[in-house]
């Protein structure tokens, strides 16, 4: 009998401990599959964030470093610069990348570091219990804005991928979602591209993934996927925001 589906070698045999319906397990699996397909597992150095994905080193089966909140782009920059033969990616949440680590991500992008960045946007701080994130939608209720995010006090949801795409040093910037099979398959293509770009020395490549967080959102996993499609995706529009390769071809 021919084996048509199996656990990627880039994932350990550790069961995921994420909440039911969480997007992290899906994103981990997709990244692991792409790394296997590209045959780069033995060259990869992954950077785990602070937040729900901090335990990435329990799941990924390749070299991993865990670092301070928001600092993965600085750590990634140095690893890639001192050993250019490695494939370095950071995996960061919205608090990590879009709040405390804004300076690090903007300047790594601006230097055009040859890195792969995976940005998980679930519109909240999941690990700490659902506080307001820079990406929390207007009127979305959280533990630190229980009447809903108010623009006068809390500002607007930060459109990170759009911001990143305006920076000259960036090679590729896209946003996709993890809500449902169709979106997941699309996301996988982006992940592969973000990694391929680094292999081909194309420079800074960035993928934002809209990711469900059912317990914090107070929704079922199914309704969470619907919420991504009907609410989140209207504020954070999916698509390729920048692709310098595409421009060359057209």
């Amino acid at each position: 009998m021919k084996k048509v589906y199996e656990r990627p070698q880039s994932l350990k045999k550790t069961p995921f401990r994420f909440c039911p319906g969480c997007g992290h397990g899906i994103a981990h699996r997709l990244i692991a599959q792409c790394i296997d397909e590209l045959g780069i597992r033995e060259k990869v150095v992954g950077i785990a964030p602070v937040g729900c994905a901090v335990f990435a080193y329990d799941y990924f089966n390749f070299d991993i470093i865990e670092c301070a909140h928001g600092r993965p782009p600085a750590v990634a920059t140095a690893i890639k610069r001192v050993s250019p033969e490695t494939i370095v990616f950071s995996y960061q949440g919205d608090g990590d990348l879009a709040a405390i680590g804004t300076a690090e991500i903007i300047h790594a992008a601006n230097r055009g570091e040859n890195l792969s960045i995976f940005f998980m946007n679930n519109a909240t701080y999941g690990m700490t219990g659902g506080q307001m994130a820079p990406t929390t939608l207007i009127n979305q209720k959280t533990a630190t804005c229980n009447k809903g995010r108010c623009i006068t006090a809390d500002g607007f949801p930060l459109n990170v991928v759009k911001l990143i795409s305006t920076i000259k040093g960036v090679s590729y910037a896209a946003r996709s979602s993890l809500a449902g099979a169709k979106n997941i398959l699309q996301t996988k293509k982006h992940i592969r591209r973000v990694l391929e770009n680094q292999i081909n020395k194309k420079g800074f490549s960035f993928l934002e993934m809209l990711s469900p967080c059912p317990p914090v959102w107070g929704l079922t996993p199914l309704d969470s996927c619907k919420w991504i499609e009907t609410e989140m995706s209207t504020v954070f529009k999916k698509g390729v925001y920048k692709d310098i390769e595409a421009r060359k071809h057209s």
Partner: protein
Amino acid sequence: MTSKNVKTVEKILMKGNEAIAEAAINARCRFFAGYPITPQNEIPEYLSERMNQVGGVFIQSESEISAINMVFGASAAGVRSMTSSSSPGISLKQEGISFLCGAQLPCVIVNVQRGGPGLGNISGSQADYFQAVKGGGHGDYKLLVYAPYNVQEMWDLTMHAFDTSDKYRNPAMILVDGMLGQMMEPLSPTPYVVKNLPVKTWALTGCKDREPNVIRSTGCKDRKPNVIKSLYMGEGELERQNELLQEKYKKMKEVEVMYEEIDVEDADVIIVAFGFAARVALSAVRGLQRDGYKVGLFRPITLFPFPMRQIHRLAGGKRKFLSIEMNAGQMVEDVRLSVNGRSDVFFYGRPGGAIMTAEEISEVIIKCFENKLEPHLF
């Protein structure tokens, strides 16, 4: 200022900050990240050119926080790494320093101290003693802290710091001040001798194009993937990790203490001073000795591990200790802990970036002899 000159000229005239930078290159440091701040700017300026000449990496980072985290990354990749700053910038680096200690990653951090607190001023100061030796960041950790007192020692101790940092997998700090950083002195650029240090089997990177004396492997081929982390969530896991760190610090206390004693054996008053203050104190001591005073100088070179046993051995009887510092009284607490009540301990200091003169110190020492000083108590 090329390596060629460094090798062929017996003595060269060099600025303290540049001596640290060139010594780092000599010690095979191949990564530097930093951010401009006075009075340490010569270090990144020098290395921005020199690193490229030796095939290393120089990055001017967007912040001090980013610089220390870049050092975290480069060190994890197995490369000797350094960052430098001055007091306010070192405060920003404390997060990264705590993480480096937690993850047991080696590196060298240079603090060319200026006056504080806050933005303070840009004069030389020793007000970051507590921050350097007592922690600074969060958690139970220690840095190896070296306090050179001339340009020659800035050269020698920088190279030494890279070795001990690698030996213990722990960050080391070169604690100097604006005066030492900016002054030029003749220096014998002693060559770096490659030490027999543990191979960095834990490094998270490939082995191509590296120094041949350090063996590294690519990714996780043929071995268990390495994990460098500072998060220990399991029951008792973090306590065990902390005990491991404490064992390491205990070992440092046993074998890494460095100090200099000048005429302490028959001294009635022993001056304790480090770094720039020790230079001024030494001038005062020499002058007073000519006038017949039995005074000596004890100069800690490592501030952690502090030469506690050595000072304790000297304490007792009517002998007095006088701690002289460019701050409001920081190292004096460690002098008192070392003396442990066996002698009276006195303090004289100038905070806020003020620098004392030898005449000023001489007067204080004479007062100490004449019992006109109040002991440093409570």
